[in-house]
Structures are given as structure tokens and as C-alpha cells.
């Protein structure tokens, strides 16, 4: 087994099978080879490293400022790139004069539609297009000896535009006669995305109670601390790209395709990166522009977006308008759920999730999956409008959909006089009703129970808003379902060195979640070598085998099993070697904490080092791959969150005092990084719930919030106490028993807060974010 040119390991002996793989709700059936060994689950009682909250293996670099982010790469002779962007929401570029900028001392190249190759981008658009469909679209770019000159040069480029009719508001964009954002109408593919099971009308007929509500959710920015960007260097025909990305392999393939060069000539490196949250899954226009500028000048080019560009040009969580109608019987059982929703695509379709996979439809999934309900219909209208294109953001769709669905459930419980948890248990789904598969594991009931205990659920107001006071407190909850099962393909290699240390290589990336540490722990566990003796290399397409982009909470459940498989392969070879040296059978030997010992007599042991020293320059190289997912089964992460809030009824200010967050994510590999993920998801979810909002001026298509004071991210003073936790046990879905936790904690945060506000003041807040103006308005009604 050797890496081929694409970096993917070709398994020459394995059988191939079909398996079902999910990413951000997009399910695909792929063909995959079986790993050489079907590893049994770890024995819980014997675990040494897995489950421990060990500090991160790259913590030293992060604490000392030594960690090199793309933004920190500095190459000799490096130029700085900057992009000129369109100031109009819809326009045709009719004249571009770069001559003044060309003459500015220090300017080395200018790129535009005039001299750039027509590289296809988005629907039927190009890298530089004469038709521009939103403020912020790329018009030209410069490379100069420093950033200040590059900016000066942009100011000297003269661009003349012909204005075209435009529409910013998604509802207006759907109306007949609305200005066309692009040829073919403003509705994606000309029709809504419809899902239906059972008989919706019959379901409503059977209901004793019908709940009907309208909800709206805002545009949320990713606001990565490290902006998107690249540093690009050509050495002959070999292209090296440092990219702030969640997917080095995707950038490699995308760049090879865009530039028309072999994949083998492209190397993508991402050592450290400053946040992605779904927005950094592939190459950007800036990456291609940097590569072209570097080619033109023969010098390395660094092109990092500034904060304003980060808001405009890197995607966002789309807004939604949701009309929900739900029918329940007196005993609480759901008879029908109907959703009609409008979501704003922006000017284009997001490339990774086209047509029926549109992320605009992702918000309908919780309606289809979270509860047992025989009659469900979702009808989603993805609409084009003249704002920048949306993209995936941490639990795309589920965050928006769950905000509305879980308030409807809360409302139903209130109107039926039921405990909201009891209502949820009444409608507990035992299988995936869309695919008609059983879940590999679902411990949501445990999450409800544990969470209720920790928040002291019984202390909530029995009647919402029953206490009249200046400051009213309340407790609310919400649940969540997410994918996060991961799957193949993913590969890892482990090399054992003469001194008993090991190198672990895999083409995944650590986007801040702690995956470097988690994979070292997995390898340590399987190999019996301490984490301090394992060095991991990832985020480099040249030196590591393929692993998928870090999205969809898939990194640990996709790559972790491949790492374990590689470690098992290396261990097998190590024990073979040990057996030959010790004159015992390999199967009688085991490794633990750096010692090789006899299984039936653990006191007879020898340090691993003494065995490996005898290898000389012979190599032990363990190779592992991610096996298929279990057939005919759905793998999902579940969870429940509880919020305790205080509402100032005079000023409308909401403080979140405490959030309890319990998830079924399978086995915990590192308890500290897992808790950190949960806490972080809640902070982002709270920002979404209470303060973050991208706002456009509808009259001009200009964003009003492209900075970090108008766009409000939570600060140290805004955050609640967080009590993270998990449902005990592991998931049989893969050989490490783990599922993803990156996205789930964000999902139920805003609805838990909204339900807690309802519990506090007896008024339902159905528009996000829940700012003081909305609370005051709602209290007035």
C-alpha cells in the first residue's frame, strides 16, 4: 500500500463495498475498500489515554505565539495582494482603467477580467465577470511590495459601471416582476424543494390542537478571527499554497482544476488556522487570484482578506422565514408537521451543495427527523437575491430550523398543559423516518434526563410569566439532531522509529477543535505508546494520505477509525518483530505504556524501545483506512440543552445565566477538548440568539455591519455559566465509538433561550436575534 499521486492510498488487497456517507446532511453512497482488519471496540476498563482530558499537543505553539498561521507566513520577496470589489448590488462593468495604478511605484501586477483566464465560478459566472451581482464581487486585483501600496493602488483603479435593477429582500425577490438576479428566475431551479411523507391534511384533521406560527432568522457571519487568505509560491511548475482552510485536499483539487495543472504539482499546507466554522471548505477566488498574481510576478504572493471583505466575500448563514403548522393530539402525539420556508441564497448557489442539496433546504431536516410524526411536509423556497452567496455555517439549517420547531413544541406543551420534556418523550423517534433506518444509537432520553437534573428543571415557572417583576427569570429547553457520523474515505500512516517513538501522518486538519491531540490519543491507545512519544503531521497534502475536509462534525469519526486502524497495523508488525526477537508468538504479546509483555504473564515485559532499537533502518509502517459505515443504519448525534435566563422587563435586556448542554456524541476521546467544543458552540449559539446580525441596506445592497462593533460577537461579559456533559457510552457505528461534537451544541442554544424567555415573561420571541427592541415590542403587545 503506497500513496499514489493523488495522495490517496490504494488498498491493493481489500474488498470494495458500498456505504452511506453523510456531510452536513448531504447523504451520498460511495464505493469504499474494506480495511485490512475489523477492529473490535476498545475495552472500556483498559483504556489508558482515550477519554482523558490531556492538554493539546500543539498548546505550546498557541500559547507562545509561535504557531504559524497562513497569515504569519512570510517568504523572501513576497508581495501583498489586494482585491478591488464592486460597490454596486447589480451592475455591468463597462470600463476599467488600471493605468494609474500600474504606474504607482511598488505595484508589480494587476489582474482583472482583461488579463485573467475565464475560470468558471459559481453557477455560470467567472473568476472575474463583467456582470456583477452583489456588492463585494471581485473586479480586479493588485500585487505590490507592501499592503499599504496595494491599497493605494486599488484607490487608483478607475472602474465604471452600468447599474442594473436589483433586489435585496428575499420575499420581494420572489414576487412576480422582481428584478432578475440572474437568468432563469429568482427561485433556485424554478421550484420549491419539497419533502413529504404520509398525508399532511389527514394529519391535521386528526389533531386536537393546531399550532401555527411565523418565525424569522437573521444572517449570521462566521467572523473567523483569521480572515480567509492564502500565501502562494511557484517553484517552476510546482505550486505551494498555504491556505487558511478546513480542507487541504479540497483546495488542492480545486486549484489544480481552476489552473489546469496536475494535482501532483499542487501542495496545500495548513498548519494552524484561525477559525472556519464552515466557511473555509474550499479554495476561494482569492486563492486563485493569489496564484495568478504570483505567476505573473514570479514572486510569492500573500493575499489575506481584510475584515470588511471577510464579511462580504466569504459566505454567511442564510436568513430564513419559516411558517410552521403542527398538529398534536391531547395526549401530546404529533399528527402532522408542515413547514413553508423562504431562504436567501444570495446571488449564487453555494458550490458544494447544489440544487436538491441546497443548504437553504437544510433547515427542514429537523422537522423531518427530530420527532416521530407520520405526516410531514416541508416546502422550501431557495431564492436568489443581490447579496453575496451564503455558505455552510456550523450546523447549517439545523440551527435555523430548530429555533422554530422547538418553540412550536414548547408552545404545544404549554397549550396542552404538558411538561415540555414529556411531550418530547411522547414523540421520541426510534428510527430515521426519512431513510427508514434504525439509529446505530440514540441516547437523547438520557440527555433530557441528565440536563433536567442539572438545570433543576422543576424550578421553572409552572405558568410562563407568572412572576411579575422588573427582572424575570425563566428556564427553557430544546433538543437537537445532527449527522456527525463521519465515514470513508480517510487514511492514516504510522511510522515507528528506532527509538520507540512514532510519527502519525494523516491528511486531515486541526481547525482548532483539538483533532491533533485526539488522533495522538487514539494512536497512543492502540499502540501502547505515550502521547509524548508520538508526533502528528497533518494539514499538508504532500506528506500525508487523504482525509476529508473538516466539516459536518466528521473529522473524529472519519479519521479517528483510520488512525486506529493504522496503529493496529503498526502494532501487529511490532509484535511480529518482538515475537521473533523474544522467541514468542506475536499473538501472545501485547503493548501497554511503552512495554511489551506476555499476555498471560504481564510481569514478563521488555521496554518497546529495546525491540525497536534492533530494527536498524528497517521500517515499521502501519497503514490504516476508514471502513464503511454499518449498512442500513443511520448515525446521528443527539442532544438537549437547558437555558436559565433573566429578562429585564423594563429595558428588554436578556442575560443568559446558565446553559446545561448534554449530548450523545458517542465515546469521548478527550474530555477537555470536548467540553471546550460544547462551551464554544453555546457561545456562538447565544450570539446568534441575542446579538449577532448581518444587516443590509435594502435601498443600496450595501452591508451595514461589516465590522466587529456593528456586528456584535459575544464578549467575556456576555457569556453564561456552561455545564457541559455527555450521555454515557459509545456508538457501535465505527471502531472508536465516537461521533462528532463540533456543530451540535450550537443547534439548540437559541431555541432553549427563547423558550426560557417565554417561561420568564410569558411572551414568545419569534424573530432572531432577540435584542432589547424586540423584547420591549413583544411585551407591549
Amino acid at each position, binding site marked *: 500500500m503506497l500513496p499514489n499521486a493523488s495522495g490517496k492510498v490504494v488498498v491493493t488487497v481489500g474488498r470494495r463495498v458500498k456505504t452511506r456517507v453523510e456531510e452536513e446532511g448531504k447523504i451520498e453512497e460511495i464505493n469504499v475498500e474494506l480495511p485490512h482488519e475489523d477492529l473490535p471496540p476498545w475495552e472500556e476498563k483498559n483504556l489508558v489515554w482515550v477519554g482523558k482530558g490531556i492538554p493539546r499537543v500543539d498548546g505550546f505553539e498557541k500559547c507562545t505565539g509561535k504557531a504559524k498561521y497562513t497569515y504569519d507566513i512570510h517568504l523572501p520577496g513576497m508581495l501583498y495582494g489586494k482585491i478591488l470589489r464592486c*460597490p454596486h448590488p447589480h451592475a455591468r462593468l463597462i470600463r476599467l482603467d488600471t493605468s494609474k495604478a500600474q504606474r504607482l511605484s511598488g505595484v508589480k501586477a494587476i489582474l482583472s477580467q482583461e488579463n485573467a483566464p475565464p475560470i468558471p465560478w459559481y453557477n455560470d459566472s467567472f473568476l472575474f465577470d463583467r456582470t456583477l451581482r452583489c456588492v463585494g464581487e471581485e473586479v480586479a486585483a493588485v500585487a505590490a511590495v507592501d499592503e*499599504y501600496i496595494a*491599497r*493605494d493602488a486599488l*484607490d487608483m483603479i478607475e472602474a465604471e459601471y452600468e447599474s442594473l435593477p436589483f433586489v435585496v429582500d428575499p420575499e420581494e425577490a420572489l414576487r412576480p416582476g422582481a428584478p432578475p438576479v440572474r437568468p432563469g428566475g429568482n427561485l433556485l431551479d424554478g421550484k420549491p424543494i419539497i419533502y413529504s411523507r404520509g398525508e399532511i391534511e389527514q394529519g391535521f384533521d386528526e389533531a386536537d390542537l393546531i399550532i401555527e406560527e411565523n418565525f424569522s432568522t437573521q444572517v449570521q457571519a462566521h467572523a473567523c478571527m483569521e480572515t480567509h487568505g492564502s500565501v502562494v509560491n511557484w517553484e517552476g511548475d510546482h505550486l505551494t499554497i498555504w491556505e487558511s482552510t478546513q480542507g487541504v485536499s479540497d483546495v488542492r483539487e480545486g486549484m489544480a482544476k481552476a489552473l489546469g495543472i496536475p494535482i501532483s504539482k499542487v501542495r496545500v499546507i495548513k498548519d494552524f488556522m484561525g477559525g472556519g466554522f464552515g466557511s473555509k471548505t474550499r479554495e476561494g477566488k482569492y486563492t486563485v487570484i493569489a496564484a495568478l498574481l504570483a505567476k505573473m510576478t514570479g514572486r510569492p504572493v500573500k493575499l489575506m482578506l481584510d475584515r470588511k471583505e471577510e464579511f462580504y466575500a466569504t459566505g454567511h448563514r442564510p436568513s430564513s422565514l419559516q411558517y410552521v403548522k403542527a398538529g398534536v393530539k391531547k395526549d401530546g402525539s404529533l399528527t402532522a408537521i408542515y413547514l413553508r420556508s423562504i431562504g436567501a441564497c444570495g446571488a449564487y448557489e453555494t458550490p458544494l451543495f447544489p440544487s436538491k442539496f441546497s443548504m437553504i433546504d437544510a433547515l427542514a431536516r429537523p422537522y423531518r427527523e427530530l420527532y416521530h410524526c407520520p405526516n410531514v411536509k416541508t416546502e422550501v423556497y431557495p431564492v436568489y437575491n443581490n447579496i453575496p452567496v451564503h455558505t455552510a455555517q456550523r450546523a447549517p439549517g439545523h440551527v435555523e430550523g430548530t429555533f422554530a420547531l422547538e418553540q412550536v413544541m414548547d408552545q404545544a406543551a404549554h397549550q396542552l398543559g404538558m411538561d415540555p420534556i414529556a411531550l418530547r418523550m411522547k414523540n421520541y423517534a426510534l428510527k430515521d423516518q426519512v431513510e427508514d433506518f434504525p439509529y446505530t444509537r440514540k441516547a437523547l432520553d438520557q440527555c433530557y434526563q441528565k440536563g433536567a437534573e442539572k438545570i433543576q428543571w422543576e424550578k421553572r415557572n409552572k405558568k410562563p410569566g407568572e412572576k411579575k417583576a*422588573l427582572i424575570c427569570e425563566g428556564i427553557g429547553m430544546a433538543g437537537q439532531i445532527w449527522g456527525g457520523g463521519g465515514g470513508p474515505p480517510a487514511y492514516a500512516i504510522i511510522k515507528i522509529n528506532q527509538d520507540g517513538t512514532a510519527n502519525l501522518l494523516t491528511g486531515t486538519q486541526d481547525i482548532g477543535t483539538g483533532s491533533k491531540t485526539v488522533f495522538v490519543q487514539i494512536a497512543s491507545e492502540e499502540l501502547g505508546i505515550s502521547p509524548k512519544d508520538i508526533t502528528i503531521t497533518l494539514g499538508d497534502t504532500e506528506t500525508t494520505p487523504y482525509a476529508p475536509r473538516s466539516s459536518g462534525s466528521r473529522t473524529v469519526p472519519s479519521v479517528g477509525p483510520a488512525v486506529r486502524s493504522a496503529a493496529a497495523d503498526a502494532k501487529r508488525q511490532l509484535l511480529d518483530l518482538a515475537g521473533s526477537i523474544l522467541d514468542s508468538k506475536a499473538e501472545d504479546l501485547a503493548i501497554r505504556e511503552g512495554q511489551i509483555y506476555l499476555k498471560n504473564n504481564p510481569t514478563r515485559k521488555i521496554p518497546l524501545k529495546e525491540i525497536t532499537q534492533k530494527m536498524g533502518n528497517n521500517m515499521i509502517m502501519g497503514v490504516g483506512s476508514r471502513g464503511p459505515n454499518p449498512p442500513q443504519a443511520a448515525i446521528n448525534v443527539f442532544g438537549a440543552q437547558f437555558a436559565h435566563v433573566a429578562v429585564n422587563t*423594563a*429595558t*428588554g*435586556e436578556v442575560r443568559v445565566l446558565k446553559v446545561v448542554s448534554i449530548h450523545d456524541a458517542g465515546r469521548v476521546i478527550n474530555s477537555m477538548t470536548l467540553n471546550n467544543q460544547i462551551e464554544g458552540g453555546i457561545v456562538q449559539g447565544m450570539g446568534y440568539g*441575542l*446579538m449577532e446580525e448581518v*444587516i443590509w*441596506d*435594502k*435601498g*443600496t445592497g*450595501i*452591508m*451595514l*455591519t*461589516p*465590522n466587529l*462593533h*456593528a456586528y*456584535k460577537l*459575544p*464578549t*467575556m*461579559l*456576555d457569556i453564561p455559566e456552561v455545564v457541559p456533559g455527555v450521555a454515557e457510552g459509545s456508538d457501535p457505528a465505527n471502531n472508536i465509538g465516537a461521533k462528532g461534537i463540533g456543530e451540535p451544541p450550537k443547534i439548540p442554544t437559541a431555541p432553549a433561550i427563547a423558550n426560557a424567555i417565554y417561561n420568564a415573561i410569558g411572551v414568545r420571541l419569534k424573530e432572531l436575534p432577540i*435584542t*432589547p*427592541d424586540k423584547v*420591549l*415590542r413583544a411585551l*407591549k403587545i
Partner: protein
Amino acid sequence: MKGFTFHKPRSLKEALAMLKEADGKAKIMAGGTDLLGAMKDGIMQPERLINLQEIPDLANIRPDNDRLHLGALVSLHEITVHPSIQKRFGILAQAAQEVGSPQLRNMGTLGGNLCQRPRCWYYRGDFVCLKRGGDQCFAVTGQNKYHAVIEGGPCFIVHPSDTAPALLAMDASVRIAGPDGEKIAALEKFFMTPRDNVTRENILEPDQILTEIMVPLPREGSRGIYLKARERRCWDFALASVALLLNIDDGICQEIRLVLGGIAPIPFRASKAEEVLKGKPIEIELIDQACRMALSGARPLASNAYKLELTQALIKQALLTLSNK
């Protein structure tokens, strides 16, 4: 940020000479936390920058018998930690604590906080609005949840300062130096509405420098409070704020100065509310009446009417707190 020539005067006299010589093409810099942002955003492109940071006298805190003299370059952080300011001029210390973030309070100055430009997202954004020489206020028909509910028009900015309402409540005055010498102006006369001049927010001429803020010692028994409602707890401007100085003797309101922030293009003195309470016993009914009167004449835009209730709520809370109700 466009290039500029940098000037580093060592005295106020030098600074004034440089400013006069620049003939309107220079900006003075105190902490720089607002100015540099505006320059980076291309809202201002001065040809020269005159840095006041190295003029020693401008950063002094000097109490005398009946007033506190604060140099315009005193940092906001110093104000929050200065023991006698905390003790005798509590509203100011509270207000300064609400400004920006810890770093901004270390860098930003009191003079800068009074002279900062508005945070209207049209003015700060890519819009040629009235304030930037254009012919319309985009907030009128646009997104206006943060805009003025009173004294607005033709431009609807709100004054962003936290310290201005506090200083106004304490009846502060400012010393202004110019080519023809110094003058002292009551802070109440310092700010200008858009009707007076839409391109600026105060009376400072381009060749003048605000050098000192003087705050009279509140009379014995006076109490003060600064309250601010906001969407997040740090680095956020007021949706509405209230600075209140109150002197109650024998249950009677002897003195009241009530100033509102975040709701008008200037720090807004709620004289009508003051009149309701002055010379009368502080009672709940009167407090409610004062709250109602505070913003009488307000004309909210499409999305900012909530500020009326919000402001009333803050006023009530301030009055109740200071009168121990």
C-alpha cells in the same frame, strides 16, 4: 489609510500654530481610537496629523477648591480608577467605565470621547450621506433602530459618547484654545444639532483644540448615577443611557440634572422631566410623570420607537435608585 504628514508638537502653542498653518487640512489626534478608524475607512483623509499625545499639560488631573480640572488627554482608564473622581464625581467614573473596552479606555481620552464622530452605520459605511457632503440621510427610510428619536433631522445620528451625558449632568464646562486665545464654554453649549450644522457635532472650529474639561464639585449630598442599555456588555454604544445628578434634602428635590445619551444627535438634557421634579417631593407618581415628560416631542422613525420606553425605564430606574425608593 492614506498617507499624511505627522506632526508632533511639544506644546499647545506649537499645536495651535501647526493647526492654523494647515488651514483645515489637518486633524488633531488624542488617543486616536476613533480618528484612525475613520481614516482607515476613508471617512477622513487629513493631509496632516497633529499628535497631541506628547504635550505634557494636556493629561493632568487637577482638583482645586470648587472644581476638577481634567486635561483633554486624560485617559478614560485614569478617570475610572482615580480615587477622588470615584468619590466625588461618581457619575463620570461610572460613565467612563462604560466606554468601549479596557484597551480603548487605556488608549482613549476624555477629550476624544467628547469629540468622537457618530457611529451611524450609514456615516461609517460606504454612503455619501448628509454628514459626508451628500444630499440625504439614508437612515430616514433605511435601517434606523439605533437612530435618534428626538432632535433629529435632517440627519438622525445619535451622539455616541458615554461621558458627555455624565459631564453635562454635572454641569461641566470646557476650555477651548484657538489662534486668538482661549475661551470657556458650558458643555451644554458645546454640542450642536444637525440643524445647526449637519457636518459636525460640536462648536470646535478646525483651528481650535479642546484642552480641558472642568467639572464643578457637586453640592454636598448630591448623588449621581449613569445607566446604559445596550445589546452586548462590552464594546457597544448605548441604545439609550441616562446620567442623573440628584440632590434631595428633606425629601424635596433641590437639584436635578437629567441627561440622556444614545437617543439624540446631542447629549439631550431632559429639562421637561427635571421641571416635573424640581422643588417637589420625590414620589412614584411624579417619577412616572417625569419619565413621560422626558421625551415629549419625540418623533421616532420606523424602527426606533422602542427607545422611548427604554429611556423611560432607565430614567425611572435611576430616579428610584437615587431616591432610595
